């Protein structure tokens, strides 16, 4: 029998001004993309605490998306820059924990880039699908 295709569970933190609006635009323009991502709206990517990302991974997410305004376009000036700095610090950390960098993605998606949002979700879904499930809690138990 053919074994069932792995459907990654993804969480996305979207800034309210650009990326969340962009995601809505994908909707109003009816651009189809995989249903794996559940979005969480924040005012600015600057609000995205790396703790949230880790929390999501621990609670069963196989991948995480952080999406905000393009550099220079941040509604609050520089929130996205701070997000990017946190992101890179976090990437180095996750690597040491044995979590592949590809599972957590930072993207700049403007309110006008519905298609881009769809593409990013598609890509992330595919990437994580190839990486396979994270199943953090189980794996930590196994190695315990």
């Amino acid at each position, binding site marked *: 029998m053919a074994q069932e295709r792995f459907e990654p569970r993804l969480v996305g933190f979207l800034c309210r001004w650009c990326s969340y609006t962009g995601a809505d635009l994908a909707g109003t323009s009816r651009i*189809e*993309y995989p249903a794996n991502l559940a979005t969480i709206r924040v005012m600015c990517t600057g*609000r995205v605490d790396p703790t949230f990302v880790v*929390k999501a991974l621990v609670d069963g997410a196989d991948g995480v998306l952080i999406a905000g305004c393009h550099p*220079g*376009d941040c509604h609050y000036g520089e929130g996205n820059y701070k997000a990017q700095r946190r992101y890179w610090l976090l990437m180095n950390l996750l690597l040491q924990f044995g979590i592949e960098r590809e599972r957590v993605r930072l993207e700049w998606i403007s309110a*006008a880039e519905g298609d881009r949002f*769809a593409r990013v979700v598609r890509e992330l879904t595919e990437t994580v699908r190839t990486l396979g499930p994270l199943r953090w809690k189980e794996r930590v138990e196994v190695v315990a």
Partner: protein
Amino acid sequence: MKDGNQIGVYICHCGTNIARTVDIQEVAGFARSLPGVAVVREYKYMCSDPGQALIKEDIKSERLTHVVVASCSPLMHEETFRGACEDAGLNRFLFQMSNIREQCSWVHHERSEATEKAKRLIAAAVRRVAQHRPLLRQEVPVRGEALVVGAGIAGIEAALRLADSGRHVYLVEKESSIGGHMARFDKTFPTLDCAACILTPKMVTVGQHPNITLLTLSAVEEVKGFVGNFHVKVHQHARYVTADCTGCGECEKVCPCVHPNDFDLLGSTRKAIYRSFPQAIPNAYVIEKRGVPMCEETCPIHTRTQGYVNLIAHGDFTGALKVIRDVNPFPASLGRVCHHPCEDRCQRGYHDESLAICALKRFVADREIELGLSPEPVRPEPNGRKVAVVGSGPAGLTGAYDLARKGYAITIFEKYGKPGGLMRTGIPPFRLPREILDREVAHVLAHGVELRLNTPLGESGVTIESLKEDGFDAILLALGTTKGRDLGIPGEHLVGVVNCLDYLREANLHDRAETGRRVAVVGGGNAAVDAARTALRHGAENVMILYRRTREEMPAIGAEIEAAKHEGVELHFLVNPVELRVGPSGRLNRVRCQKMRLGQPDEGGRRRPIPIDGEYVEFEIDQVILAISQLPDLDFLVKDKDFDLTKWATLRADPYTCETGKLGVFAAGDAVTGPSTVVEAMASGRQAATAVDLYLHGEDLDILRQESHRPQELPLMDHVRRPDLPRKPRARIPVNHGAGISFEEVERTFTREQAMEEAARCLVCGGCSDCRICSDACDREAIDHLMADTVHELDVGAIVVATGFEPYDVRKLPRYGYGRHDDVITALEFERMCHASGPTGGRITTKKGEAPKTVAILHCIGSRDESHLEYCSRVCCMYSLKFAHLVREHTGAEVYNFYIDIRAFGKGYEEFYKRLLREGVHFIRGKAAEVTAVAESPEEEGKLMVVAEDTLLGITRRVPAELVILSAGLAPRKDSSDVAHVFSLGCAQGGFFLEKHPKLAPVDTPTEGIFLAGACQGPKDIPDSVAQGSAAAAGALVLMDRGKVVLEPIRAVIREERCGGCKLCVASCPFGAVEYDAERSISRVVRELCHGCGTCAAGCPSGAATQENFEDTQILAEIEGALAV
């Protein structure tokens, strides 16, 4: 989840929008299973009144503690449902929305997947809302003033509406007049009424409206604050013409500077002082100043070069001379001997050759002499102060000149029997004829300056003390350099070795200089070359210059070196004298030189000479003139301990204030700076004079220390490096070869014609040449060339952005030959061509001036083109039809429209199209491929051919046309991204500003209090722009009339009891809204300043900072929920 929660979940079908792909029943069932959920209902349209009623009902009857609505995007209806909760007495923030339409049912087609995702989203919302707590909203007042940015038709409309309703409006416009693109149009489609007739009245009203403050030539630099309370910085560029201007136009008549007219286009021109168009508002002239040109910048005395050059070009030689004499008493002399750095970075030089500026200066000066005119000295009321100037060289004389023109009584003390310093003792007459020098010194003296000759500084003459006793309030020392530097080699003191300065002085002052038969001049500066040429004139048979570097490094003026060579002076390079030897006769007869090579450049940038070991060369000579370097003679002065020397043996004086160690004594010129050129010495003298003036007015000299900011190189003029600017080499200075080797002057001056032609080569890269004759022409004295830019700080409640568009640059589509074929023109150019007050006075014509028999109008140039503008520019079809009509009407020519589709979308537009069809305009369905002059058949010879595929006939057509109009698309302005940044707007379609909602909020932006109007939001025709202008005004008025705005409580909060005062939140806040309280070692949020981004909450390492309605617990719960399924 807190105990006792009664959560209500409401799932919307949104007609079939959601229900089609999401299994509502299943989701509802799932929702019931969620902890804390008391009620689950689904309804066709939750946003409808009955839908909301359901919620309100349950809140009351079921005593709901929290509400979740799963429907469309919160950006769409969050406010609606929050309102519903509030109506039913539930705090509006105990609500959470779940977006299962835009982000679920509309983007996923597989029903099962969409349903599963809907469950996750709802679970997330339920968990989150359980953590919500009641919040209060804060109200802040709204200011009554409004800012409108951009004064095209949209901005004008918005401004008038606001002003008429009694609000004060600041209308900011980048150009010198309001009116925008519409002001350039002739007729408007489809009604064909004249644009000016409908626009001008509105413009006039704006100009006169008591409630409108009009700021032209202005740009918004910074926007701070928030809705209702914006703080705006506006930078207004100087107009250089005051409000007193009546627009009479006298200034325009006299202005010598001609520039391309970028308003009228089609190669028409305007003056540097101009008015875009007759109906301009404000109806005042404006001067285009691009900045300080390099010729003026690099001139040590900052002569307003372009000022006099352009006056010369127009034959106003007296005016030119006046401009020069403002800063320079020696035009004729400098016109001969100046090393003219002004010519080094002339923009004309980038195109062909730099301007012969120096020679032009000489021309006007010489002409005055020719005509026997003499300049009028400026003699103001004496101010009763006396200043002594010691030394009558260029530095001293310039200092005296400046001070005398300020009303000081000046006495100059000169060591030698004649005035002029090195200009006389150093520069030989064949370069600077004595009558010229005498004349210009006389002009300085004519300012009431007293000259005492043969009066050196020292016992034999005057001393600092004696001068003070004689009642001089200040003393300016301009002692110059009179001593030559020694080589320090054996034989230097033999008979026949003479120092250059002494040699020249004897020759120039007393016309008797002992000169050998074979003379070697050592050195590479101007003095060396002068000495060599002088030696020839004093009977030397053979003169050589020995220089240790090469021709490249010679400091002397190139032309002089050439002249010397021409006269037979031998140049020996890379040789350095090491010994002077006597022959059998016991007299000097040989100079032994070390051969040199060039090493690495020194700090001065000149390559250092390095001896080549063991390689020597000898020259037969009987006289050596040493011209290495010069020193001031300060032996007497330094006996006074107040004066001391630098390590270069020059007099120590403050480089900014020229003060010496002794109070009231200032110093300038070569004695301070070391050897320099005439003009550099003059600059030094001027600097000292300025200091003396300040000093005698008891002012603080430190203001001289402020580094006067040096403006950088001006942007190149557009036409530089462009083929259409004809290349024209600079005029050559006539040389008087007849003179041969005599004391007669060698170089001659320009002829009148030569001068005017040469001057006309100036590109006036400064925009305005700063000749200032317009000031004389203006009897209202409305012109102020020194006017400075101003920065306005405005407080406004609302902002309307109406910055408009720009036509797509058709040069980016070279296949249509714009710029290569004269008769391919843009739509805007055609608008001006039709315009009665345009460059052709309304005549439709080819470049040759003939009325075209066939005209082609190419639609969609740039538009609907993936590699240019992907979108349809909306108006091009209609204005192209308008053009077609105008062409028929004016010329009766055959008109061919090449179109993709005709988009006649507006009221009366389709009818207009029909009308054109009836008028016999040809329509070819197919976008033009190219415009070519390459003939494929004899009958095509000499014609422009428009090539296109006729998609109705399915054939390629080649249509001849005498005039081709490119209907360019509408593009975002080049600076749109900067503007977007200033107003924190989003950009779509490569630069058009993003509205809040494409249908429901077309003039709002995501930033509350900022509105959009007109083409800056997207291509638009006039009616739509006007409508948006009104709509935006209405939006702004709503805010202002309400008088207050409610701030969403999503602000950051820092819990004191948990804050350790690490200050990292202070660093993370982009709005400076967090302040640190050192007393209590905690940080605090200033609510009014907080914009609610939450960056500090995320970044608080101890978790003491949090964001209302986006608390960690709430977001973490949402994460759990999203993953719980």
